């Protein structure tokens, strides 16, 4: 699976199911289970940039929150430097690595800059919290000084002015920088950036991602960068030689070095994303294929995911075998791990008939976001 040598965080066969039974269903006794994350294994190494990309509702945020210990998985395990996080939480001080240490090491930056800061607190008081948490003996002066230093580094000058503002007096980009700064002051090992640039203006996104790259270097922090926008993921992971994970309906369908995933997408779904995304990099733009590589645009319901390979209903290369059996991640011609039978030359896939599906296969449409 997606393993690395000495991981900070290891996810093993993580599964998250939500019970989302509605009123009428409850009366009927029907249960609605949303399969948010299905059997995902993933390692996060030191000082690594991982981008998780996928459509809205594919479970990437849920997976991300599992990875930083904010969402309890319904199946599988999550370990921080070898210590099971949820065991540590239950065992209290008896665990090998105390839960408080794990909590300090895994931080989050949210999507909505407006609600990620307490509206009743000034920037200074918000930023004092992580310092009080990690270095309780630090004096008020030293704290303030550090916050000024950080604000200046984050490009909010003069810091003495910004420090005494309330969140509503900051722009979206500034709010996001403060949220990022608050996470950094915890000196974490991993920061989950959950759609952290999606709410910003396009012009500010690259700037924000560059800032994260700088901070990653300076603070020695790994980033898990979640985005529904392949262009952002490509830029974020591609620029610093990170990794890209592509998610579809709760499953990790492709995972590999950013360079590989960008230049040589293997999974049909990655190809769709790649095709539909105007690249930020002009060198890559020439390689875009002209043929929309997708069958139809409707995204299946995560409550009742398709049988076999979950992508087969939309996959242009789907064959009957895909509807019967589900593939697992395996290495193909490149360094990427891909969950597709096409990676296996011996698979019965090559002998089965092309998948016709319930719909007219001629109904080919352009795939895109939303």
């Amino acid at each position: 699976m997606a393993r690395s040598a000495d991981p900070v965080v290891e996810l093993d066969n993580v599964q998250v199911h939500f019970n989302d039974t509605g009123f009428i269903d409850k009366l009927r006794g029907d249960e609605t289970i949303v399969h948010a994350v299905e059997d995902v294994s993933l390692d996060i190494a030191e000082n690594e940039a991982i981008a998780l990309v996928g459509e809205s509702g594919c479970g990437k945020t849920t997976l991300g929150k599992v990875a930083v210990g904010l969402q309890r998985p319904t199946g599988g395990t999550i370990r921080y430097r070898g210590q099971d996080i949820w065991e540590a939480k239950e065992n209290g001080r008896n665990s090998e690595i105390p839960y408080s240490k794990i909590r300090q090491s895994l931080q989050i930056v949210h999507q909505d800059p407006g609600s990620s800061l307490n509206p009743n607190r000034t920037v200074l008081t918000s930023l004092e919290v992580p310092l009080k948490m990690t270095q309780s003996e630090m004096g008020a002066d030293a704290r303030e000084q550090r916050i000024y230093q950080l604000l200046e580094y984050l490009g909010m000058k003069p810091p003495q002015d910004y420090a005494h503002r309330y969140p509503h007096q900051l722009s979206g980009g500034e709010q996001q920088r403060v949220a990022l700064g608050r996470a950094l002051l915890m000196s974490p090992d991993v920061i989950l950036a959950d759609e952290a640039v999606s709410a910003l203006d396009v012009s500010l996104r690259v700037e924000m991602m560059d800032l994260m790259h700088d901070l990653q270097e300076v603070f020695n922090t790994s980033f898990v960068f979640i985005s529904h926008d392949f262009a952002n993921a490509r830029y974020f992971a591609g620029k610093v030689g990170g990794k890209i994970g592509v998610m579809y309906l709760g499953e990790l369908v492709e995972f590999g070095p950013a360079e590989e995933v960008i230049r040589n997408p293997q999974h049909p779904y990655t190809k769709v994303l790649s095709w539909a995304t105007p690249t930020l990099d002009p060198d890559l733009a020439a390689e875009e294929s002209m043929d929309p590589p997708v069958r139809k645009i409707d995204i299946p319901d995560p409550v009742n995911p398709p049988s076999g390979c979950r992508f087969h209903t939309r996959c242009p290369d789907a064959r009957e075998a895909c509807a019967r059996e589900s593939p697992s991640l395996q290495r193909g011609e490149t360094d990427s791990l891909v969950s597709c039978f096409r990676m296996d030359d011996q698979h019965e896939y090559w002998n089965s008939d092309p998948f016709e599906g319930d719909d007219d296969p001629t109904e080919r449409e352009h795939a895109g976001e939303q």
Partner: protein
Amino acid sequence: MADTDIDTEDDAQTVTDGGSGGAQAFFEQAGDYQATSTSRKDRTYRKLDLYVFAPFRVAWSDWRARVGISIIVFFILLGTVGVELVEEPLMNEGAPYTTWFQTWEMPLGTDNWGQPIHKMLVHSTPAILKMALAGVLFAVGLAIVIGVVAGYKGGTVDYVLMTLTDIIMIIPGLPLTIVLLAIWQPRDPFVVGVVLAIDSWPSLARMLRSQVLTIREEEYVEAARAMGVPTRTIVQKDITPQLMPYIMINASNAAQGVIFAAVGLYFLGFLPDGGAYNWGVMMNEAYQTGGALANPWRGGHWLFAPMIMLTVFTMGLILFSQGMDRVFNTKIRARHAKTVADDEDELN
């Protein structure tokens, strides 16, 4: 500065944590703000400005709060200083059933014993204030603890606390309190206030719980949890301040409810007056003895004067809570704080 202490602490962390070494290096080589650091005095002033002066300035800029505070302060003065200045009423100070605005000594007239109404009104105030205070402290305190804990902890704690709240809410408040009062016959206004507030906390507790349910899903609360901030602190610093408008408005409502019920019950003659002056007792006597309803020209002033006092006091409470709405609006408060940068260059 005690920088050396911090360094050793950070070094100790570096052994186990690859991350903070980078942070340490960063803060060492970053710009020095020592020169601009603020003194303790400045910091205290900033805190006072944010949490005391600015809210007061905001409140005072609103006419409702201004009038409300004035009325409440007036009644508090009446109940404390006023009682010292105005002597207790005596029988036959004036002719019985003197109606209002007849003489300078007794502007509000007299009752059937010739006691001046205005003196009776003044000496009724302390009891009313005590009942309101006891009721508010009891109801609001209990509601905050139960509502916030239930909402934030969720699960079984929530279930147990909300079942308890429902039971108390469903026990018919007024009949129950009347029964309790009839059995105990308390004379201490503090006890009367608490008993009458027995049914005022469940609705606030439930309201706070549902607010907490919404707020606890806010991203900054999740961020605080991610930082490992203890639940207590999250509740105190991140959640409760958001609830202040509800708490203030409900505190005012609870005070109003206690006073309404108390005066109403004294009016109907349910509560033993114990010889103390009381707006409700006055109304009861005017109604029963004075025949104020059938003959308002004779006993009306006796009945209506305490009613007006009661109405004005409640109006003060309502205006106060209405005006407080603005105080808890951070945007408005920031504009009134001197230590917060101006909105001029706001980028939104």
